[in-house]
């Protein structure tokens, strides 16, 4: 055989061996961020801060807030956990205290991960203490749910993707996107007759961007969501009512987040 033939066959043999070897390449394991145990002082069991008993542990957050923001945080945290009479969300956020809280939330979102977490705790508390589900006689029927959802969307855009890989923020980020889906579905179903297609489409678009359905490549948050709430993602891509999975999962996780302060 000619040298060229031998070289060619050797190249082919190498490729065949590589082809068999390639099949044995292991798939990378999915490491769930919240399973990573961090060294040193940390916020343990972060989901307790988002649950019904958040008020019991909320003061623990103060020590994680930067000194220049701490006084404001303490004051506004206290305020958020003592909202009385279940006001409408828009009404409360547009009040002087609400505007101060909204500004603080913006600052905290851009701060350390503990501060970002603290901001999410305040948003969840607001969702628990204000009315965003329209009653029969409500006028601005979808505005409350939309406004509450926008607070979560802001947080998710700023911290959702990085949070999905963070042991502290992974579970809260998932909770945030599920509740966001629930709020947008509530806004969608707010009209007395028919549905609000704008809210539905807005909610879908935001969620698709956050989980990476649109690009065909899932984001870390989408990945994390698929691992823990596959039904929500399945319905997102394959159900006629695409936000329903998020709504259902959020209701299961946070039955007290009813939008009517009756939890």
């Amino acid at each position, binding site marked *: *055989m*000619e040298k060229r*033939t031998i070289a*060619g*066959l050797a*190249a*082919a*043999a*190498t*490729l*065949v061996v*590589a*082809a*068999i070897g*390639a*099949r*044995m*390449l*292991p*798939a*990378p*394991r*999915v490491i769930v961020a919240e399973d990573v145990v961090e060294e040193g002082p940390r916020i343990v069991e972060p989901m307790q801060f988002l649950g019904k008993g958040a008020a019991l542990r909320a003061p623990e957050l103060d020590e994680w807030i930067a000194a220049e923001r701490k006084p404001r945080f303490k004051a506004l945290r206290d305020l958020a956990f003592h909202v009385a009479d279940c006001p409408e969300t828009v009404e409360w956020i547009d009040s002087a205290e609400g505007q101060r809280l909204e500004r603080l939330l913006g600052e905290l979102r851009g701060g350390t991960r503990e501060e970002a977490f603290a901001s999410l705790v305040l948003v969840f508390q607001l969702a628990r203490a204000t009315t965003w589900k329209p009653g029969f006689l409500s006028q601005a029927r979808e505005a409350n749910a939309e406004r509450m959802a926008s607070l979560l969307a802001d947080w998710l855009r700023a911290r959702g993707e990085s949070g999905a890989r963070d042991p502290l923020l992974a579970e809260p980020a998932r909770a945030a996107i599920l509740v966001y889906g629930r709020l947008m579905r509530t806004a969608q179903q707010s009209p007395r007759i028919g549905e609000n297609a704008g809210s539905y489409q807005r909610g879908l678009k935001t969620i698709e961007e956050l989980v*990476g359905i649109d690009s*065909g*490549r*899932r984001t*870390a948050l*989408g*990945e994390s969501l*698929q691992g823990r709430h*596959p039904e929500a*993602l*399945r319905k997102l*891509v*394959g159900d006629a009512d695409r936000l*329903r999975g998020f709504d259902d999962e959020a209701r299961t996780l946070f039955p007290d987040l009813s939008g009517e302060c009756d939890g």
Partner: protein
Amino acid sequence: MSALPERSATGGIVLGAILIGVGGLLLGLQVDANGAWCGTGLAPLAIGALLALGAIAVRVGSSTGRMPRDDVGIAAVVAGFFGLTFAIGGALAPGGPWMFFEVLLLVAVVTLRKADARTGRWIAPSALGLLAVFLLFRLWISYQGSQLRWQVMSVDVPVVSWIPFDFLDPVKHVALGSFTPLEMGFPPAGLDFALSTTLWALGFAACVAGMMLVQSSTIEHENDRIHALIRTLPPSVADVVERLLPEDEWRELGLHGLPERRLARRIESAVAERVRRQDALRRALEQSKMLGNSADADGFSADIRRALTGEDPKDGVR
């Protein structure tokens, strides 16, 4: 005139083998939803190897199949084996009952089917077509899986599916051909459908192209070997032998794959047979000339007579 040198049969086999290697490599990889590369697993490859081995054994054992007689011939058979192995391994559903159903079909259509005696191709186009259909099916269920739909298709139940009550969900649709993520061999992070299926489709195309090239080059290579043996005769005798036994008929005459000694005997007996036939024909022709002139006959009979004696047709139509 082409600027490229003519491709030899050996060159074709080498190129085909390289194409098969590249195809196998592409079919062995997938990309997960995080963009990480991983393997598609050994199970389908093992089944592919088993079926390919069966196919080769059936062909070697059949009347038309012969053993390779030199290093290049052996390389061609090995390349063909891996080509078929990779193509089957890449086209099969990665696991579950679907895979075994496909295996049964392949056993019937690919493994147990004998090589085409006329063309010498041991993988028929219909078998490659079946593999292509399996690949399409695999791409489809991979797409369904990448969309988190774990069935081949879902059919809406008329009327019930139009009723907007959540509690009716379980009976609103009928899932046809369900499967699980485990059967699909998806990486834990999920599949990057677009990139992975592009790799598989390209890999399959490269494998099939490589197999076709190896097959046709192997036939050419065998013809070269027979031609080389005939050319050891004095040139005038070799010319007569090649006119008596045209190259197109060498495979049908069973000359391919024979060891040199048996090949020489087979050529000798084939030449003797052809010469006997030519003699018989010549005698018959001479007898027919004695039967009379075709000029005074008409119709089909006259035309045939004229054709046998090599005369021009009466109406000038040839």
